[in-house]
């Protein structure tokens, strides 16, 4: 426990001094502001670009607050995931490669404390960034759109999305524990995006998967999800996160021998 505290302090300072604490939230906040703005002003933007064929009347579908959230979630599922994976891909592998880990591994450290401190710092930063992004979007939606989803629905949505983001971060950290940085990024992104493709193809039958969480979460904003499926997906995701954490700790220990001396 004492080691966990020491390591967490180190992770915290590292995130602050490498500006990770600044840029990761800002990217999410940026998209949170951009997405509602873009949709609201899309007609004017198209008009000013002026490429519209003569006489064509585009009737853009009327967007609701929930629609904007869905579209923003789509952004976070691509750019957001990319940013998170890139931000955390070197968490463990980088310390092995640079050799900074060597002087940690020669001490009587607990690899559980080592991994969990990184996990805690990364999960907190990622979840906070995601929530700040959706929060920023809320301030724009309130001003620009007629209907805003209910507050309690929004909270439930944010909680479900947080579980998904924890899964993403855990996958990235464990990949970083197991592989060199480049391989870790490739593996994490590969698994995430292939999972999305599989979900797109056979998702109707595969209802208990981490990749379903975002649509179940969004369903809270549009009338409520199938709570049975949501519970199943949450359970499966939690188990996967636990398994990934344990693998991560084991891999961190095993790969300590690969640290540069």
């Amino acid at each position, binding site marked *: 426990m004492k080691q966990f505290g020491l390591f967490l302090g180190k992770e915290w300072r590292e995130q602050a001094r490498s*500006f990770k604490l*600044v840029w990761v939230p800002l*990217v999410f*906040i*940026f998209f949170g502001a951009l997405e509602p703005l873009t949709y609201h002003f899309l007609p004017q933007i198209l008009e000013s670009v002026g490429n519209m064929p003569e006489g064509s009347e585009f009737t853009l579908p009327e967007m609701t607050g929930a629609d904007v959230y869905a579209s923003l979630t789509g952004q976070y599922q691509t750019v957001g995931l990319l*940013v998170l994976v890139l931000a955390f891909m*070197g968490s463990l592998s980088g310390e092995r490669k640079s050799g*900074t880990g060597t002087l940690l591994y020669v001490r009587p450290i607990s690899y559980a404390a080592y991994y969990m401190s990184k996990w805690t710092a990364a999960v907190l930063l990622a979840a906070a960034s995601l929530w700040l992004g959706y929060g920023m979007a809320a301030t*724009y939606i309130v001003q620009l759109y007629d209907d805003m989803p209910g507050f309690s629905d929004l909270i439930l949505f944010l909680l479900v999305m947080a579980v998904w983001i924890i899964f993403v971060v855990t996958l990235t950290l464990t990949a970083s524990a197991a592989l060199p940085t480049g391989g870790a990024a490739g593996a994490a992104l590969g698994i995430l995006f292939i999972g999305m493709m599989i979900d797109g193809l056979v998702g109707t039958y595969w209802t208990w998967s981490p990749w379903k969480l975002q649509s179940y979460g969004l369903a809270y904003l549009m009338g409520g999800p199938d709570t049975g499926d949501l519970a199943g997906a949450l359970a499966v995701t939690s188990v996967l996160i636990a398994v990934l954490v344990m693998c991560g700790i084991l891999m961190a220990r095993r790969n300590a021998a690969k640290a540069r001396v």
Partner: protein
Amino acid sequence: MSITEQLADVPWGLVWPLIAIQLVLMTAALIDLNRKRSTNGPVILWVFIIIFINTIGPVLYFTVGRRHS
């Protein structure tokens, strides 16, 4: 519509946070670059990327531009 009219039409109250975020990202990236000066590829290239590519530039620098010494 003249340029000034167009500019006046822009809802600045809604847009300025975006500009502020970009400036903060750019500043943070430049401070970090100045402190480290070790990048993958030429430093000057990263200065241009950070300044001229909106939002993505600083993020690219923070994710793949920095090199661990």
